[in-house]
């Protein structure tokens, strides 16, 4: 085990190699180029095949072939490139071919920009390609999780004979965090009794999705449906249960990390708030989410888009709790401060945070602990006596005396 | 005294100091200037008094429209200069 400071994009390469992936095809597109670049170096070192394909369409179809031949294969791209891959994703699902796909999301729609976003949720989870099918979708939030989920993706792909999508974003792709990298070890890869490697000593096999005879395609779809139902147990999530919470904040990936900072701040100010982070977007952890939602008075979904996962959250809670949304589209990252403001709007309360907020006001403060924070720690957390959160509804709209005191002192320098 | 047929003005704010003007000037009329321009480069500079013939090579090679070639009538204006 070596603890390495490594970039999200590059850790995906390391994990793929550790999982026994020996075929990679990809086309350059920002912000995932480090995956293609590191694969160009590392895959030949591991004795595998690296191909820079002429386009994303070629890349995923090269992986289709490699998977059919029995190799663990992976391609990676970003949003516009993943749009190009949709036809092949439908084919991979229809033909029941194991394959790992990586989408490092960027701002869209169209050419968009190269900033991180989460605006491909619909594309990832609701299809994107044609027909009744699903990909398993894993959504890492840390570089360590990107490593672990890439390993998991290959195993799930083989377990279910299905394409698996690792849905990351441009920020996670560029982020560097310490990860314990296990050196790739020889794996006993699951035998693929469906691969095409020449019908020597066995009956010929067939890979196809064209099923023209009466009723055959319908039957195949039911078979796929049954498989998708059996995947329900793969749902994963992370949460922090708390009884009687005013608000449940739901987010995935990088948005969840920003939301956690806001939740921590709000709790220190006395707000009872819980968070829930789906780690699989398909299958969606609906039951666990519904349970968590029912402990809360309201749900706030936080995403880097115009509102996509929020629809699945509404479906999951089935009207039992009001669901609100906060997000920013077009490649904008969510500052915790804005999430905190959205949380306050959701519960209809004001929390005065700026005076002793732990959320940095400027970039320069990130990494340094503000002096006011230290003061807070020594004093202990503010008690209700000096909390700015109104104790009763009657106080909403009146400025507590303690608040006035802070304002006259001015913001901390 | 050398008779100038041309004089170049380098627009310092557009120059990215690629040096291709200097590379292809047959009369060695360019040098690196001083100070950083807003783009972060030390812009090129036309050496005043150099033997520019207004051949146009510099403007032909400049990717940034940073070269202005000013020509003068050789007989009249050159007389006035000398």
């Amino acid at each position, binding site marked *: 085990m070596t603890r390495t400071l490594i970039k999200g994009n590059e850790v995906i390469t390391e994990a793929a190699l550790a999982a026994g992936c020996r075929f990679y095809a990809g086309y*350059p597109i920002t912000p995932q180029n480090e995956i293609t670049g590191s694969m160009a170096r590392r895959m030949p070192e591991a004795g595998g095949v690296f191909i820079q394909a002429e386009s994303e369409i070629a890349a995923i179809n090269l992986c289709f072939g490699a998977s059919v031949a029995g190799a663990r294969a992976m391609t990676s791209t970003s949003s516009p490139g993943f749009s190009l891959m949709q036809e092949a994703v439908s084919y991979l699902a229809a033909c029941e071919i194991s394959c790992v796909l990586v989408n490092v999301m960027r701002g869209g729609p169209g*050419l968009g920009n190269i900033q991180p976003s989460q605006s491909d949720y619909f594309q990832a989870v609701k299809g994107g390609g044609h027909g009744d099918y699903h990909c398993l979708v894993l959504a890492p939030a840390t570089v360590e999780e990107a490593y672990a989920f890439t390993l998991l993706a290959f195993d799930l792909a083989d377990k279910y004979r299905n394409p698996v999508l690792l849905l990351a974003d441009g920020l996670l792709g560029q982020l560097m965090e310490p990860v314990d990298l296990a050196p790739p070890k020889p794996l006993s890869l699951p035998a693929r009794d469906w691969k095409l490697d020449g019908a020597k000593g066995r009956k010929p096999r067939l890979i196809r999705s064209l099923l023209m005879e009466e009723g055959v395609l319908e039957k195949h779809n039911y078979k796929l449906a049954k498989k998708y139902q059996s995947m329900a147990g793969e749902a994963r999530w992370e949460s922090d249960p708390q009884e009687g919470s005013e608000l449940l904040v739901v987010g995935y990936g990088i948005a969840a990390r920003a939301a956690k900072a806001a939740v921590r701040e709000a709790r220190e100010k006395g707000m009872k708030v819980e968070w829930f982070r789906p780690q699989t977007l398909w299958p969606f952890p609906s039951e666990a989410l519904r349970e968590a939602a029912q402990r809360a008075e309201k749900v706030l979904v936080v995403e880097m888009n115009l509102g996509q996962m929020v629809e699945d959250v509404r479906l999951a809670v089935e009207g039992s709790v009001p669901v609100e949304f906060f997000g920013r589209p077009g490649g904008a990252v969510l500052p915790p401060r804005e999430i905190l403001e959205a949380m306050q709007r959701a519960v209809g309360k004001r929390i005065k945070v700026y005076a002793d907020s732990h959320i940095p006001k400027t970039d320069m403060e990130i990494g340094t602990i503000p002096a006011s924070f230290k003061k807070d720690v020594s004093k202990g957390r503010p008690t209700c006596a000096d909390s700015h959160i109104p104790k009763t509804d009657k106080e909403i709209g009146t400025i507590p005396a303690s608040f006035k005191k802070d304002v006259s002192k001015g913001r901390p320098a | 005294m050398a008779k100038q047929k041309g004089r170049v003005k380098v627009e310092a704010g557009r120059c990215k100091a690629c040096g291709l003007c200097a*590379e292809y000037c047959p009369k060695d009329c360019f040098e690196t200037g001083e100070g950083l321009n807003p783009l972060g480069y030390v812009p090129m500079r036309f050496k005043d008094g150099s033997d520019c013939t207004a051949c*146009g090579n510099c403007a032909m090679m400049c990717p*940034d429209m940073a*070269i202005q070639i000013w020509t003068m009538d050789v007989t009249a204006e050159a007389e006035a200069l000398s």
Partner: protein
Amino acid sequence: MKLANLKPESLTETPTGYCSGCGHGVAHRLVAEVIDEMGMRENTVGVAPVGCAVFAYDYWNFDVTEAPHGRTPCVAAGIKRVLPDRVVFSYQGDGDLASIGMGEIIHTANRGDNITVVFINNANYGMTGGQMAPTTPLGMKTSTTPLGRTAEAGHPIRVPELLNALEAPVYLDRQSLHDPAHVRKAKNALKKAFRLQVEGKGFSLVELLSTCPSNWGMTPQDAVKWVGVEMVKTFPLGVIRDKS
């Protein structure tokens, strides 16, 4: 004294975001000069690629549209079919034209759509960080050929020669931007290609060898020298087809 070289009307005042010594600046200017000299600025529609020149519309003072990566000739052909009397051109790099757009350029050329294609060849993918392009010469190191390109990744593709196997194209030329004499020749090639379009003659493509000092890891001066000495070995200059 008078100013000998005016800024072309078809070029905006905006300083480009291209790297120091990048050939795009010269190529954009040549296209602008040709369009001005033909008096066609107000009748021109350009199609910009995905690549460094995705921002070309900031630098040209006429109508320009973006196109999805590689589909640039299709967008140009679509415009030309609807507005046959306009000057319509696509401006593409190695990835846009010869990689993801290979299908589109072949079929646009095959249909003989009356557009002009300006193909900028700088032997790598600049915008995304210097990866191999279909035009990367053998042995050249890029971020996806860290040990140098081998034949396993394919040989470099000569596009005008490839299109020369088709019936329809009228004019296919390869010139270079590496020194003043060649820049002048390049302008003449562009002028001819645009003139043929105005005359309704059919599809033409002009490839221009250009530099990418940043990703080649060279100074601009070394980069132009490399084009003039080394790159021309893989991509010989001169007319490949002239059916005009």
